[in-house]
């Protein structure tokens, strides 16, 4: 423990609560330096009161107060305000101020760095982020517009957990941690992990909220939104909230220009799976041609 010389002065001024005073006395009783300081202060206060060998009036008052505290209910002490506490504890106040400053600085740096990334590109071919070409491994900032060329392909590993396959011709944005996808156009296949918070894919027509794990959302050029579920369950609702359907595995629903989602009907995931593999093969061939040409 540090030598509490400031507290000794406050104790002698009658400005410590009983608990703090008891702690201080326990320390002074076992600390030669603090006892000397205590005695010196008492002598000094006695001198100011006129006689260094006669107890100062404040000592008499302290004796009565302590006796009453020991005998039973002590007289209530006035509560101290926050400012007074800060003045009495300059080191604690400085530490608190430093902590607040660090928090502010940290917050500022965080704001300067921008929001947490939505995810990371694990597959990227002919992909742009806000108009700039990016490659696999690049982070996907929240709010950035991700576009996949008609000859391209992308797969994003989400910060929240799970992956999103982005088909050629798609344009989309991710929210922070990749919890929401705003699909402007094209097709995405979401394979997200359950139990890790919400996840939804929104188009201008519909919202598909994940209840399961794997589903495809396609926003066609004609303005329709097609939601196809491979595994688990997805809840689909049109943006005007005219209706809501629950789409189970191997089912699909469509949300047209006007109207609620259609009743779920059978769907085979083979088409989407084959399409993805075909796109992958096409990209591979394109690379091969590129290398042969060189």
């Amino acid at each position, binding site marked *: 423990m540090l030598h509490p010389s400031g507290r000794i*002065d406050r104790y002698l001024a009658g400005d410590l609560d009983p608990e703090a005073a008891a702690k201080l006395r326990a320390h*002074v009783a076992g600390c030669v330096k603090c*006892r000397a300081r205590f*005695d010196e202060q008492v002598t*000094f206060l006695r001198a100011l009161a006129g006689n260094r060998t006669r107890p100062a009036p404040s000592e008499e*008052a302290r004796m009565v107060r302590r006796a*009453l505290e020991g005998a039973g209910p002590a007289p209530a002490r*006035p509560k*101290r305000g926050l400012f007074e506490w800060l003045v009495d504890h300059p080191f604690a106040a400085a530490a608190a101020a430093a902590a607040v400053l660090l928090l502010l600085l940290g917050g500022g740096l965080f704001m300067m760095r921008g929001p947490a990334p939505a995810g990371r590109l694990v597959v990227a071919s002919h992909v742009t982020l806000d108009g700039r070409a990016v490659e696999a491994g690049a982070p996907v900032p929240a709010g950035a517009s991700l576009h996949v060329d008609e000859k391209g392909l992308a797969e994003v590993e989400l910060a929240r957990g799970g992956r999103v396959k982005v088909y050629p011709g798609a344009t989309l944005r991710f929210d922070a941690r990749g919890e929401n996808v705003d699909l402007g156009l094209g097709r995405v296949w979401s394979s997200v992990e359950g139990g890790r918070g919400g996840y939804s894919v929104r188009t201008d027509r519909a919202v598909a909220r994940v209840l399961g794990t794997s589903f495809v959302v396609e926003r066609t050029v004609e303005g329709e939104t097609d939601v196809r579920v491979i595994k688990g369950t997805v809840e689909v609702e049109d943006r005007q909230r005219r209706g809501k359907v629950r789409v189970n595995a191997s089912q699909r629903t469509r949300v047209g220009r006007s109207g609620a989602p259609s009743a779920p009907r059978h769907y085979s995931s083979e088409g989407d799976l084959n399409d993805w593999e075909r796109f992958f093969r096409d990209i591979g061939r394109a690379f091969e041609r590129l290398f042969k040409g060189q």
Partner: protein
Amino acid sequence: MLESDTLKNPLPMTEPARSSIVRKVELAHATLERFQKGDPEAFAQVVRAFGPLVRGAVSRYWQSAFDREEAMQEIWMHVWKHREALDLARAASFSGWLAVLARRRCIDLLREPRDPALAGEATEAEALAWLGTAAEQESSVEGDELGEAVRLFKQKLKEPWREFFELHFERGLDYEEVCGRMGISRLRCKYMRKVLAMKARRNAKIMAALGRPEAKRDAAS
């Protein structure tokens, strides 16, 4: 009414009038009765009235102001716990009862009763006589010097600093009482106490009177 100095003392050499410790103390019988019944306010009156007597007892055993305060607290707690042992029929000899109890408690606290004469078996009169001789005294020269230094220091203070000095340092009023009398905040009280203590510590005359020649030159007054 209790008049401790009217006790018949068989030992002429221990005339209690020699010391202010065993000065005439007056406390109503009713107060002692309330004290015995456990009234904290009556206890506070007893502590105020007989504080010098207990202080005188502990001064004979401990040098440190801190040790003395701790011992006094122990004694007062002992007195409070054993208040029922007080014989109200002999209320006039309350100071004697207290002196014996204080002396015994001091010895208990020290746990070194090597001297049989200190073994706490003294009569009330002997205990009072023992307290009658002052344990420590300030020479009048030193006292005059210090008193003069403090007087000059106070004289140079401007209002309201002087008023604060009188109320807090001389009369021992706590912050709440000073706040009420001067119409200032607690925080202001703390500030004034700190500033005045600092100024006094820089006052060469006061520090010299306290036997501390290393004190800084008077820069404040």
